[in-house]
């Protein structure tokens, strides 16, 4: 799948996008966050407080219980502050 990061999530992780093979046992965004957290201190910092994060799946706002497929585009970001 394609992972995208915006704002301070991008800064903490140190990149804006990456390809990631969705592990077979991971069904939801919440479960994926647990996996990503173990990828290093930068990921741990970005995903330390999931409550502060929002997600979009294939460019639509979703909750963390949304189911994932390997062909998805998944974005993590803080609450939006446009306008």
């Amino acid at each position, binding site marked *: 799948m394609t992972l995208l990061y915006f*704002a301070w999530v991008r800064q903490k992780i140190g990149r804006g996008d990456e390809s990631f093979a969705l592990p077979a046992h991971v069904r939801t965004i919440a479960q994926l966050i647990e996996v990503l957290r173990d990828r290093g201190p930068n990921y741990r910092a970005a995903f330390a407080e999931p409550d502060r994060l929002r997600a979009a799946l294939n460019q*639509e706002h979703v909750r963390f219980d949304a189911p994932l497929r390997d062909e998805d585009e998944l974005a993590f970001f803080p609450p939006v502050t446009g306008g």
Partner: protein
Amino acid sequence: MKTIRVQTADFDGGAECERLVAGQTDIGAVVSFTGLVRGDDGLDALALEHYTGMTEREIARHVQQAETRWSILGVTVIHRIGRLAPGDRIVFVAVASAHRAAAFEAAQYLMDYLKTRAPFWKQEHRGADAAWVEAKESDADAAIRWRES
């Protein structure tokens, strides 16, 4: 007429309003909102980033929602990205309708949703400091009022 643009360039709100009504005689009301960068607490600049693709989709989706809800004869939404200084225009929404209530309400609705759903993020620069702007509770409350009960 429906216009949605995300751009680094400045815009001309007056010209956008003109475009919305040009050659029409069924439009009785045009409401426009222009958002500007305030120079609060010694702000030097804002830096805006967005989620290319999703932004346009989200805005288009809410424009469609507005068209379902109100009788609208034209909509323009422009949002700037990149580096902006205090006093710079940042966002523009204009709605044309036969009557003023629809134009006012639809413009407010679009602004409330831009603030809470469109994937833009602002970073404030003051001297050497850069801080991401926190989302405001008041913006979430403003958007909630439009939910169908």
